[in-house]
């Protein structure tokens, strides 16, 4: 519980109507996509950077934990108020401040929804490529804090590759700017990159300066069905060796295809044990050639069938297959643990075989799909929580999958972050020294541990 005095001070800072301690509001800001629930003491909706700074000054002085929140759509609990305190909902800061077509730079507030920003820049012929699956509802602030990825990252890179500068409120209540609207800048440490993926533990993002690209003229989508996962994986390497970097290279394994087939009227022959959805973009005359070239490159690798979309409706139909995966999985099994390991892309087939072995050994269903182009595999451990022993098996499987990915030179999270869900496993990936180096930064910047405490690192 926070004292009446603190609540009054919060009301003075942001306005009474933007501070709530009503139980209904606390419930509404208690969860995220991990489905875990922690009630905060108060929900605050700031409207300006200065309000955020004043609030942090107060929170730091009074040692009240603060949990910044965008859309609450994270998969690792980054926004969960695990220690009560203040949920700082950033949704009111949702202006696109400027789109500068001369310099290919935009400035936005953190509460702007990713897709709405993409639509706005595309209207003036510009392009913001990062496309996390949640782009229709996740915010840019959350995307930066978690360094979100997405299918297009294979060609264009992840969120941090598009962030030129930030305005942040520090855990002690200062307002600072990192980077700026220039393409180059080497004065001082690269705090912009440090903030990207810091999961809201080092500062609260209040403004984002974003690099844009010219919008490609056209894109072309194709679906390639393979007789084996090896064929699909070899195809990925072969395409890249062929000096083509597609915009997206999404794959689905046999178990995923089976799930989708069971849940929808997917028209894919039984002989297809893996598939790739490949998209290329660029000049109109170029992409037709690229699509043909890709089709030729992959043909010897056990291709069952290749479908190239000729219209945008056909392209949409191909993407619909990929989009139907999540719902289909749940129809087959009620509970899903969605991990997002990443391995060097040449190691994808080996990783899939490891996962298949883990699945067979533990006798639980694991399906794999994801971004084959950059080795980022969504490993979905499917169980029914209600059946005894299943949860334990899932936990064992997840640990084995992480170890497997690390042994191949990979990482346990390509895009979801650590939050609270993966912190129990952080020792597998980070040495004690590396963790200590990071924690030293956290302690120096947030001496009272008030900003998003309990995230990333194990509580010692």
């Amino acid at each position: 519980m926070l004292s009446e005095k603190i609540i009054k001070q919060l009301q003075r800072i942001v306005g009474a109507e933007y501070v709530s301690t009503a139980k209904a509001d606390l419930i509404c800001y208690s969860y995220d996509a991990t489905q875990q629930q922690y009630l905060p003491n108060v929900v605050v909706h700031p409207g300006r950077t200065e309000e955020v700074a004043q609030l942090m000054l107060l929170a730091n002085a009074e040692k009240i934990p603060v949990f910044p929140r965008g859309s609450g759509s994270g998969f690792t609990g980054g926004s969960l108020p695990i220690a009560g305190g203040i949920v700082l909902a950033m949704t009111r800061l949702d202006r696109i401040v400027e789109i500068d077509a001369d310099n290919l730079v935009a400035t936005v507030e953190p509460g702007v929804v990713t897709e709405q920003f993409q639509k706005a820049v595309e209207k003036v012929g510009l392009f913001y490529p990062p496309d996390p699956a949640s782009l229709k509802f996740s915010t840019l602030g959350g995307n930066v804090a978690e360094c979100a990825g997405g299918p297009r990252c294979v060609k264009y890179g992840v969120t941090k590759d598009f962030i030129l500068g930030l305005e942040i409120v520090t855990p002690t209540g200062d307002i600072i700017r990192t980077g700026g609207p220039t393409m180059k800048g080497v004065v001082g440490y690269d705090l912009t990159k440090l903030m990207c993926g810091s999961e809201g533990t080092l500062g609260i993002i209040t403004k984002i300066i974003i690099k844009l690209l010219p919008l490609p003229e056209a894109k072309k989508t194709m679906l390639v069905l393979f007789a084996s996962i090896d064929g699909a994986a070899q195809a990925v390497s072969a395409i890249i060796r062929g000096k083509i970097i597609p915009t997206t290279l999404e794959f689905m394994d046999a178990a995923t295809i089976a799930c989708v087939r069971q849940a929808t009227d997917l028209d894919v022959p039984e002989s297809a044990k893996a598939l790739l959805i490949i998209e290329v973009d660029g000049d109109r005359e170029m992409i037709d050639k690229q699509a043909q070239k890709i089709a030729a490159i992959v043909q010897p690798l056990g291709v069952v069938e290749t479908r190239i979309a000729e219209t945008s409706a056909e392209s949409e139909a191909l993407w619909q297959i990929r989009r139907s995966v999540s719902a289909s999985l749940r129809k087959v099994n009620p509970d899903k643990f969605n991990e997002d390991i990443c391995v060097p892309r040449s190691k994808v087939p080996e990783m899939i075989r490891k996962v298949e072995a883990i699945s067979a050994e533990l006798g639980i269903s694991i399906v794999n799909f994801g971004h084959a182009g950059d080795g980022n595999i969504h490993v979905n451990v499917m169980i029914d929580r209600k059946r005894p022993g299943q949860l334990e098996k899932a936990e064992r499987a997840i640990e084995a999958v992480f170890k497997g990915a690390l042994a191949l030179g990979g990482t346990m999270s390509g895009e979801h972050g650590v939050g609270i869900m993966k912190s129990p496993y952080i020792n597998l990936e980070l040495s004690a020294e590396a963790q200590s180096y990071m924690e030293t930064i956290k302690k120096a910047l947030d001496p009272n541990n008030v900003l998003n405490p309990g995230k990333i690192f194990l509580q010692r």
Partner: protein
Amino acid sequence: MKKLKRLDEYQEEIAQCVKCGACRAHCPAFGAEKHEGRVARGKIALADALLKGEVDLEDKFLLDMSQCLLCGSCCAQCPNNVPTDEIVAATRREIARRRGLSTFAKGVAGILSRPELMNLLAKSGGKLSTLLFKKLPQSSGLRLRFPAPFISADRTLPSLASTPFRERYPEKIAGAAGRPTVAFFTGCGINYMYPEVGVALLKALQFIGVTVVIPAGQGCCGLPAVSAGAGEVVEQLAEQNLKALTATPVDCIVTACASCHAGLGKVYQDFGAEFAPLTANVKDIFVFLVEQGLVEKLAALPKAAKRMKVTYHDPCHLRTQGITKEPRAILKALPQVDYVEMEDAGTCCGLGGTYSVYHYDTAKKIGAKKAGFIEESGAALVATDCPGCIMQLQDAVNHAGQQQRAVHILSLLMEALEEVREDK
């Protein structure tokens, strides 16, 4: 007849919400207010907390539960198909069960079952004025949607028909031999506010030789009562309509109101197998007209020399049932129409039954967005397939200071058919 499901019977559906947040992209109420309590995910968490006894019926809880248009947009986009509209409606009934109906909902409940009051009002009134409604707190099904004491003075309201549609016509209007027979469920909007839409529907069916039955015993579909949490009224109206609409054998029951279509076709499914002859037989008028080959007949007409630009607004209660192509097909085939698609034609207009009464400010914000898309489309008319949407769209356009008119597609269809007659 089975009863409407209680909130505790939705536990399984509630558990299916995985809190992914996808509904935030599709909820019109959330789009206007950006508060988690407005969106499906928040409401499901609250319904769950209510069932577990973790939250009381505090003001914020009631506000959040009232902030839902029951448009079904979230359900249609939910990866787990969680029926949030049904869960919210069940929560409203649960609130009514625990605390009794609100004064407003009581008014709704009392009135819906007594259509004679609305007829009386229509005959004596002519113009629907706020004042008149204030004097007559116990009026009709319409009052459920637009109860006077809550009506904002700046709301644009259509005139009330001096003679309700159903009183103007016999119960049966014979068509050509060997052609289908349909029952016409008028709904309150057409019966009292837009009788000309009903007239247009009869013209269209006459044109293709269809026999029309207008069952006299029909009442309100009950959707406003669903929205108000007045479960018993819904059940009572459903029983009344079942009797009225299945008394005469027909090939199908047509509606020209998206909400009525959802009321009869979807809500009534909860009442069990005895309602199947009704629910399975409900058809939107344009689905029926397309099946009957009207598109081809219209396409054969000579294009008018002077055409107007018309865009289409998808009523939520049709879009979420997958009915999007047929109304457009008819519109595009009309000889006097140049069809243009507006951006986000499928987003809610902001009416949401009783929603716009409680939350006119939010409804206006939602409507303003829509008005912007209508303006950008360059259309002179925005056509749709729901009297409620027509009212809200016209209000939104007026508030934006724009010139477009909101019309029912049937009105445009009648215009085209009259042209044909004059040519002859």
